[in-house]
């Protein structure tokens, strides 16, 4: 294929690309106009469930409305959502071919500033995570925020090269990851067996059940975030197959 | 009353005999040749016995029906009436003979389990077509027949056989889908409707005739593929690549008869002959049938392959049935119905002979067959009888049906039909007689196989001869003893009368 054909082909592909950009742009703009028009026609005034949620707050065992919605009114959603997190980790294990984290990429070289910073920040991060978890009962905070902050602490450990989750065995990792999902599962099964609707928390003990479930959820969210950062499939294996024939196989 | 209501269970039993044998044959070992042969023969015998019992019961006034409702708004209905008895008798009898023939013919070739399995499934389908009580059940077996015949057409497994199978499938499935649309459209208009002599549609709907004509046209297109009307007959010569017993039973009796039988059912039991005449749909169909008759015979003239010539002769002979059916009149309907039987018997004789010649002498071309009678006198005699039947010479059955169609069309004032009959008989003579002449009076040619097998008589294996002789005798007896009470002609007359009385 002479150079001329190559440039011709590239010019044709670039022209094709330009057409695609213009079309996509026009489409996106049209959609934007439709959405803006729809937004302008939205009904005014309070419509949502603010009052109902506030009114029933007393029975949910939690004072903060959002936590009540998350862990009592719509706890089924949160359960599926923790399931999504668990699935993401399972998918990454599927990509890596196994849950063992031993052969995780070697940590980058340790530089003194980062190690000092981690030694300072890690305790603070865990403390804030705990506080956030506790805060969830009566102020904005809760499982996700605490979990993600702890996860950030895990990521920090990973970046600074200090060994953390990759030292724990395979079974321990699996338990830590699944504990959030299991918490909701046990709650659902228990409420079913106790004759209540699924995930219906008895008003009396709702508060502490929510706290317990929240803590387990925080643990599993933190571990998930840390594993997400740690177990990213890196460049362990050199590119085995050239890009072209992979796409060719994908297309035939 | 016997414990089980045998009038309910006998019909599914008839179907089951060949269905179960078919499925069972799949699971046999390839080596169990004689077990397979005996199993199929036994099944054929049992089926013949059952059909005789049903026939005897029918004539003594009992009615046999099996109905269970499918929630789609119609019932799955198997029912014996005079018309279905005709085709059932034909299929079962000829299946018995063809199984015998096939055992002899296929000895030694592979994939026999698959062959005999699908062979029995085909017969189940063709009997099912015969005893179907309404259009939807008819369609179910009609399509089942297509599926069961495909593996037989491609049995040899060569590229050519598979290519032939593909054309066969394209034609028959297109026909099937078009017929499906017709049936659904009729169902939408008239609701669930069973076959009743004298037609059902007339009373139900008279406010939109155009739709009815359209439905009739669509149905004729769908059925025309299997009944090999002119533009849609392309698959029949191509499917001749299948082994001889397949061509014999399927392409002379089962598959094509399903199409012709369907046309008769639609004209008489769905639309009713009188209503279709008023609708004016019959004349175009008659014209197409006439064209097919002439065209089929013309094409047959030019074929050097014996089986191809027989295929084109089937194309034209079948249209006799359609032609007879479209002419309103007692005689012509009887002629058309009785031709259903006669053509089956005669054509199967010719295919048996063609198969025998191919197996024993390895000859498939007409030009090679001069002086064959000296080597295979019995086969050639049967071939001659079959040929004369096709031409319509007096003592044979062919003459009877052509005579009835001719007289019927004269009574109905459509003389041009007689002209068509004459031309086609002449053409039949033109492409059959030269073969017969060269067989008997042609000088002996050095036969390729002679060196190895020595001079003198070299008849086919007796398992090929017996069915051939039986069918040849039948084609004569049906002609000579036409007036006998149990003859096919008499049965056809009874059916015709039932169709017209309730008009």
């Amino acid at each position, binding site marked *: 294929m002479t150079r001329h054909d190559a440039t011709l082909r590239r010019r044709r592909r670039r022209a094709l690309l330009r057409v695609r950009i213009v079309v996509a742009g026009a489409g996106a703009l049209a959609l934007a106009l*439709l*959405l803006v028009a*729809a937004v302008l*026609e*939205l009904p005014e005034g309070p419509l949502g*469930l603010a009052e109902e*949620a506030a009114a*029933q707050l007393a029975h949910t065992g939690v004072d903060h409305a959002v936590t009540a919605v998350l862990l009592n*009114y*719509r*706890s089924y959603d949160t359960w*599926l*959502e923790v399931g*999504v997190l*668990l*699935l993401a980790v399972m*998918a990454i*294990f*599927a990509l890596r*071919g*196994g*849950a063992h984290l031993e052969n995780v990429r070697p940590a980058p070289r340790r530089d003194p500033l980062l190690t000092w910073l981690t030694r300072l920040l890690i305790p603070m991060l865990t403390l804030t995570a705990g506080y956030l978890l506790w805060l969830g009962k009566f102020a904005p905070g809760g499982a996700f925020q605490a979990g993600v902050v702890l996860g950030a602490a895990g990521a920090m450990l990973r970046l600074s090269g200090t060994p953390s989750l990759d030292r724990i065995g395979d*079974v321990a990792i*699996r*338990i830590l990851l*699944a504990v959030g*999902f*299991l918490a909701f*599962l046990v709650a*659902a099964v228990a409420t*079913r067996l106790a004759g209540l609707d*699924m*995930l219906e928390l008895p008003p009396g003990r709702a508060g502490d059940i929510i706290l317990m479930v929240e803590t387990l959820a925080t643990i599993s969210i933190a571990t998930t975030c840390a594993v997400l950062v740690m177990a990213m499939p890196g460049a362990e294996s050199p590119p085995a197959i050239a890009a072209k024939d*992979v*796409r060719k*196989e*994908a297309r*035939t | 009353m016997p414990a089980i209501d045998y009038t309910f269970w006998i019909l599914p039993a008839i179907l089951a005999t060949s269905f179960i044998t078919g499925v069972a044959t*799949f699971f046999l070992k390839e080596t169990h040749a004689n077990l397979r042969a005996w199993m199929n023969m036994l099944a054929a015998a049992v089926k013949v016995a059952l059909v005789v019992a049903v026939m005897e019961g029918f004539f003594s006034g009992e009615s046999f029906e099996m109905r269970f409702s499918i*929630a*789609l708004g119609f019932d799955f209905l198997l029912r014996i009436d005079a018309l279905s008895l005709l085709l059932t008798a034909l299929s079962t009898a000829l299946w018995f003979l063809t199984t015998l023939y096939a055992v002899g013919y296929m000895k030694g070739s592979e*994939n026999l389990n698959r062959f005999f399995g699908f062979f029995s499934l085909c017969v189940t389908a063709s009997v099912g077509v015969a005893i179907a009580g309404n259009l939807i059940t008819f369609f179910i077996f009609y*399509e*089942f027949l297509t*599926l069961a015949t*495909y593996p037989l057409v*491609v049995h040899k*497994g*060569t*590229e050519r056989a*598979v290519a032939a*199978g593909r054309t066969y499938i*394209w034609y028959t*499935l*297109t026909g099937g889908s078009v017929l*499906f*649309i017709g049936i*659904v*459209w009729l169902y*939408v208009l008239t609701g669930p409707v069973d076959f009743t002599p004298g037609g059902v549609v007339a009373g139900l709907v008279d406010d939109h005739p155009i739709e009815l004509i359209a439905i009739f046209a669509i149905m004729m297109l769908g059925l025309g593929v299997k009944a090999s009307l002119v533009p849609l007959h392309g698959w029949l010569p191509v499917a001749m690549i299948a082994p001889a017993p397949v061509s014999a039973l399927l392409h002379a009796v089962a598959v094509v008869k399903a199409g012709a039988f369907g046309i008769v059912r639609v004209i008489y039991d769905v639309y009713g002959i009188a209503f279709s005449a008023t609708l004016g749909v019959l004349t175009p169909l008659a014209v197409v049938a006439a064209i097919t008759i002439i065209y089929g015979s013309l094409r047959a003239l030019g074929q050097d392959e014996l089986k191809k010539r027989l295929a084109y002769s089937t194309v034209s002979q079948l249209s006799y049935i359609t032609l007879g059916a479209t002419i309103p009149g007692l005689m012509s309907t009887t002629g058309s119905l009785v031709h259903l039987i006669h053509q089956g018997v005669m054509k199967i004789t010719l295919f048996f002979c063609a198969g025998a010649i191919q197996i024993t002498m390895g000859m498939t071309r007409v030009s090679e067959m001069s002086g064959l009678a000296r080597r295979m006198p019995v086969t050639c005699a049967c071939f001659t009888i079959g040929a004369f039947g096709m031409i319509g010479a007096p003592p044979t059955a062919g003459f009877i049906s052509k005579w009835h169609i001719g007289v019927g069309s004269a009574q109905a004032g459509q003389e041009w039909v007689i002209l068509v009959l004459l031309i086609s008989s002449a053409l039949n003579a033109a492409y059959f007689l030269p073969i017969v002449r060269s067989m008997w009076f042609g000088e002996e040619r050095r036969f390729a196989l002679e060196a190895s097998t020595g001079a003198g008589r070299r008849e086919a294996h007796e398992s090929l001869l017996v069915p051939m002789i039986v069918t040849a005798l039948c084609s004569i007896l049906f002609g000579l003893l036409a007036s006998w009470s149990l003859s096919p002609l008499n049965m056809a007359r009874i059916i015709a009368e039932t169709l017209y009385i309730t008009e």
Partner: protein
Amino acid sequence: MIEPMAWCILAPFIGASLAFLLPGRVWRRPIAIGAIGATLASVWMLTSQVWNSGAQRMDLSGWPAPLGIGLAADGFSVFMIVMTGVVGSLIGAYALWHYSDLSDATEPAERRLFWPLWLILWGSLNAIYLSSDIFNIYVALEVITLAAVALITLSGKAEALVAAMRYLLAAFLGSLSYLMGVALLYATHGALDLVIIADQERAGLPEVGAFALMATGLALKTALFPMHFWLPPAHSKAAAPVSAILSALVVKASFYVLLRLWFGVFDGPAMYAVGILLGTLGSAAIIWGAFQALRQMSLKLLIAHSTVAQIGYLFLIFPLTARRPSGELAAAGWITEACTGVSYHALSHALAKAAMFLGAGVVLHVYGSDLLTNMRGMSRRLPITTFALAIAGVSLMGLPPSGGFAAKWLIVTAALGAGQWWWVLVILIGGLLTAGYIFLMLRWAFISEDAPIQLRPANMPIQLAALALALLSVLVGFRLEEPFQLLVIGDPFPIFDLP
């Protein structure tokens, strides 16, 4: 008393957690069989409960509709759950062998992760069919997408990863567009429950915008014609049981949600033009998918393109149930036929497609590759698999003795009854093209083998799983009363009560 609705979701989730926590070889088989058995039992209990005492509804975590999430099971959802259960358990039986140590096709990592992923997918499929809350449906759709993509990547082959990536991006875009629709609906109705939104009649620009977004998102996830680019590579490059799960079950979930929105939330029938548009896209899918399938040289790609085509049939329900601008229903008398026809097509397609993919899996295992040309003489070597593929083909083509025929019959009756005869032409051409590629596949099986090549033995259970599915897809065409009565319990297609 046991509330089967909850257990239809709990049982697979319990199985999935156990399978994830105990990945050891010794535990795998008992957990898998136990989970499948428990789920089938709860599905059976749910069916009998709905059969005897009509549609059920349960408010989760004790809070009634506007605040809490409701689970509702009417005839249509139970029909889909039974479909998922039956097809899922038979695929599970195949997977029990495929992901066991007997087969050398899979590495230990795959075997450990298949069951957790598949059981969570199964649980969330049941969750979607039961959920009556549009945001909950979003989260469940997301779970399904992630689990499905993870299952595709299990095989680890390079082109499987590329196909999985394309599927993930498309599905992620679909979910976000669906979520934007949910947001718009919440902004106009202030509630998330299907029943509450359906009661509030409010048709304005926001509603139309919401439907446009949700319909596009769901159509993207169901791979309707213009947006089907991701399906063929994804469904053909995955392992056999995974492709069966994707084609037969996962694709139907987003279609089910679209149907729920069409009948319930958006009073779909009022949108005649939208119905016609969806119908035309469906017809284009039928023709284009079948045409593409005819050009394939590998069996799994052929079957994947056939999925694209068969999905087109499902979308014919929209024009048939739409109401003409003049107000009277297009197919006034034939709504039941249209709805039962399409649901029945979903069922028979699921059975037939799963049978074909499992059959293709057997061919892949025995012949080493699923190229059509080396299926030569297959009818002698693998008679049961050829028989299964043939019967599944018969059901796909809609030939009489099969479930596909009943579905085609109902859809054509509805189309002719509605006077929209052009759909009938599409079905006619689609049926013939389907026959084209089915016999394109079968012709290789009948061609006699030239050089007898050495093959790996195909043990019986996997062939029987494929055969069982194929036979079911035919037998389902015989006994129709009970499924039809089941389908209309709880009035899932609420056009009838319109004035």
